[in-house]
């Protein structure tokens, strides 16, 4: 979680995020400033110590982004698009496997994402489809989105949940540890059409590439020349 000072410095120097979010950046950074997100309360009730056998609390900050209150945009500013943040916690799936599905749908419109997920032969595809449909419903019901298909996937990622361990037997009475992995899946839908390129380092069209190459060649100078 970056502080407001660091965020401002990044905006001022026009640095790109790792992974290079372009269209999402302008909308993402201001809304992620800590001052506008509601306060996160204590993890557990007062007097209860954190112990490994207590049920995991899971991510709590992500849904709070929905409760931000923004100042009204001016007449000359572009209208702020509606967004909804949704998380599916403690899903019985591995984060490493979920990454592939989460990264596939980044930057897609929700219709396209749901269509493509139908043809992905993985358990995570079902989980992500459900999460997208829930988020879509939330957007229309609570976040003033007019058309449910006018949404695109601005952020989609998965993090590690609680890992439970069990024992198994290998050959020759050798023990093995079985990891029962859980994951949290996060998605943020934004209203509007998806951007042409989601990542900043996407390949340019051939004409653009040629133009850039020519520019670079023309900028060459002979050192110590007149």
């Amino acid at each position, binding site marked *: 979680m970056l502080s407001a000072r660091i965020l401002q410095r990044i905006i001022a120097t026009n640095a790109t995020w790792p992974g290079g979010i372009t269209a999402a950046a302008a909308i993402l950074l201001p809304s992620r400033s800590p001052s506008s997100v509601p306060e996160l309360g204590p993890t557990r009730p007062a007097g209860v110590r954190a112990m490994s056998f207590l049920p995991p609390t899971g991510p709590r900050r992500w849904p709070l982004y929905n409760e931000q209150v923004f100042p009204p945009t001016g007449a000359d500013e572009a209208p702020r698009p509606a967004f909804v943040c949704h998380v599916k916690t403690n899903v019985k799936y591995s984060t490493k496997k979920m990454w592939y599905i989460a990264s596939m749908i980044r930057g897609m419109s929700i219709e396209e994402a749901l269509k*493509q997920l139908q043809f992905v032969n993985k358990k995570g595809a079902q989980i992500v489809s459900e999460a997208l449909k829930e988020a879509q419903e939330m957007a229309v019901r609570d976040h003033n989105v007019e058309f449910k298909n006018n949404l695109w996937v601005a952020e989609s990622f998965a993090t590690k949940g609680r890992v439970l361990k069990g024992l198994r037997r290998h050959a020759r009475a050798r023990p093995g540890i079985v990891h029962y992995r859980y994951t949290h899946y996060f998605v943020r839908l934004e209203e509007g059409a998806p951007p042409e390129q989601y990542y900043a380092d996407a390949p340019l069209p051939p004409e653009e590439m040629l133009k850039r190459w020519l520019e670079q060649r023309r900028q060459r100078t002979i050192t110590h020349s007149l």
Partner: protein
Amino acid sequence: MINGVRVVWGNWQRTIDRYAVIIYQAINGGGGPSPALALAAAGGVPHQRAATPPGGAPPPVADDGFLWAVPKYRRSVERRMMRRYGAESWPNGRKLIKPKNNLIFCLKCGSHYLPGMLCMTCYNRVKSETEELQKAVAQQQGLTPPDREVAIVYRGEREAIDDQQAKAVRLVELPKERPRWFSKNLMQRTTTPVATETAPVKPSDLG
């Protein structure tokens, strides 16, 4: 009581972590991994053996392959990343899931499907209807051997069949309406009149 169950589960998880190491140690007689903290918490290894026994090093056990196949070098992060996520220019190709661009749109129900396959929504709709019909037929048939053709009749279609025809077939009446997509006319080969005069037609443009 729930707190008691949680304590037991937490203890079980901690026990697994702790005793997996001890079991390794016990079987291999002091070899294998030995994190000191876990062992200290457990109270030490039950069977302690000297690093070099008095009669010299023991002969290697032929059937114990515990430490035979081990990685020789650490995998660099570049190789790890290439293996997991791939790269388009490499022979392995991308490991990422590629979105499909050859999906076809079903004109009857509006859902997408892969070329060369049936539309799954249409197929499942037909399948569920078929199962219902089969169940109704089986219920009526019971254990009597099939001796007549089965005619399935939906609501409002019984009147179209006269009694003589009805006696010749085994009539199965369904209380539901006929689905819109289920045509009554499946046995007729074509609705357009078949051409009776067939003469060879010469192409006029070829000269």
